[in-house]
């Protein structure tokens, strides 16, 4: 059925070219700046503390030993080179776990999960002596593989809610294995007076 007065529909033509131009620019920008997280390196998720950027050091990209501390008191030790992991843990995707508090069990032993998430990588449980041996082994293996070329870095990713006791235990172990230089990973805090949050 036709309407009595046929209204003429003006064919609206929108020129999409400027839109496409802008979108192309945005796309190029994001494609070039994107750095993908590898699935394995983000295995253990923690909420990092914030700090003011005083010396503006960025996280090194390779030859990094990452030590992750979870609120449950577990210490995960990992390197970014799978060959080193193969050498030290006997599995390409394994990750070391040390639970300093001997009176309790690690989270993965109790619930099979970490931070309420399933954990896909193989976990190698370590005691204190093994943990300290692993710290040394990881460093030496990486050094050998790269012919002493690598600037090996230790970074510490601690969850905000981790107890300092765990950090203290870890620092004792690091000191024991002569790993006296390490970095704490934080996220950027903006300079704003009166916004210092206190526990």
């Amino acid at each position: 059925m036709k309407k009595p007065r046929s209204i003429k529909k003006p064919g609206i033509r929108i020129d999409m070219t400027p839109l496409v131009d802008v979108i192309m620019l945005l796309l190029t920008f994001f494609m070039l700046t994107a750095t993908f997280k590898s699935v394995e390196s983000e295995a253990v998720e923690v909420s990092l503390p914030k700090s003011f950027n005083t010396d503006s050091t960025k996280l090194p990209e390779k030859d990094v030993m990452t030590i992750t501390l979870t609120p449950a008191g577990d210490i995960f030790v990992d390197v970014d080179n799978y060959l080193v992991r193969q050498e030290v843990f006997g599995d390409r995707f394994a990750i070391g776990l040390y639970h300093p508090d001997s009176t309790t069990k690690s989270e993965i032993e109790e619930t099979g999960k970490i931070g309420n998430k399933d954990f896909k990588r193989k976990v190698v449980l370590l005691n204190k002596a093994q943990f300290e041996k692993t710290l040394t082994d990881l460093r030496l293996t990486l050094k050998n593989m790269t012919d002493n070329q690598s600037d090996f870095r230790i970074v510490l990713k601690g969850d905000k809610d981790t107890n300092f006791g765990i950090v203290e235990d870890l620092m004792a172990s690091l000191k024991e294995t002569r790993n006296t230089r390490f970095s704490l990973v934080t996220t950027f805090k903006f300079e704003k007076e009166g916004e210092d949050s206190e526990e």
Partner: protein
Amino acid sequence: MAGGGGAEAQATSADRHKKKRGKGLKIGVHIDMTPMVDVIMLLLTFFMLTTTLATPQVMQINLPKGDEKDKVKVDMGNVLFIRVSDQGNIYFSLGKSDGTEQAPEFVEFTDMKNRLEALYAANENLLLLLKFSRGMKYNLMVDILDEINRAAIEKRYTFLPMEETDREIVRLAGG
């Protein structure tokens, strides 16, 4: 809308064809950009969502090499004890040259930077001894180190374990 536009474009080009037959004619080529825009939009959304712009930064920590023979004698008069309780309360106490120390004093976290700068102005050889309680949160440790880094002082600090005597001092000062 896209389909209608396409049909219209065809119609007009057919009309033009009829009128201008025989002449050298220019056909206005209309490329329908909609599918391309759709795809690009999808890609854009994908990259926007997966990208991580804020790369985390690091704070450098240097522990002293733990050799027994490297033990350094410090003048207790240059020492400032910073003790932090389980509850996260910060206590400053200055050491005295005779080996004792002044009574601990509660310091607000927000006031810490100014206090450190004032103490450093009074004594340039100030050495900070950090005694953090095991029950305190890692977040506070980072915050305190950050304040020390931010303060206009020389960054000389070291971590010491909190012993029973320290716990007692903190407890007497209010926990």
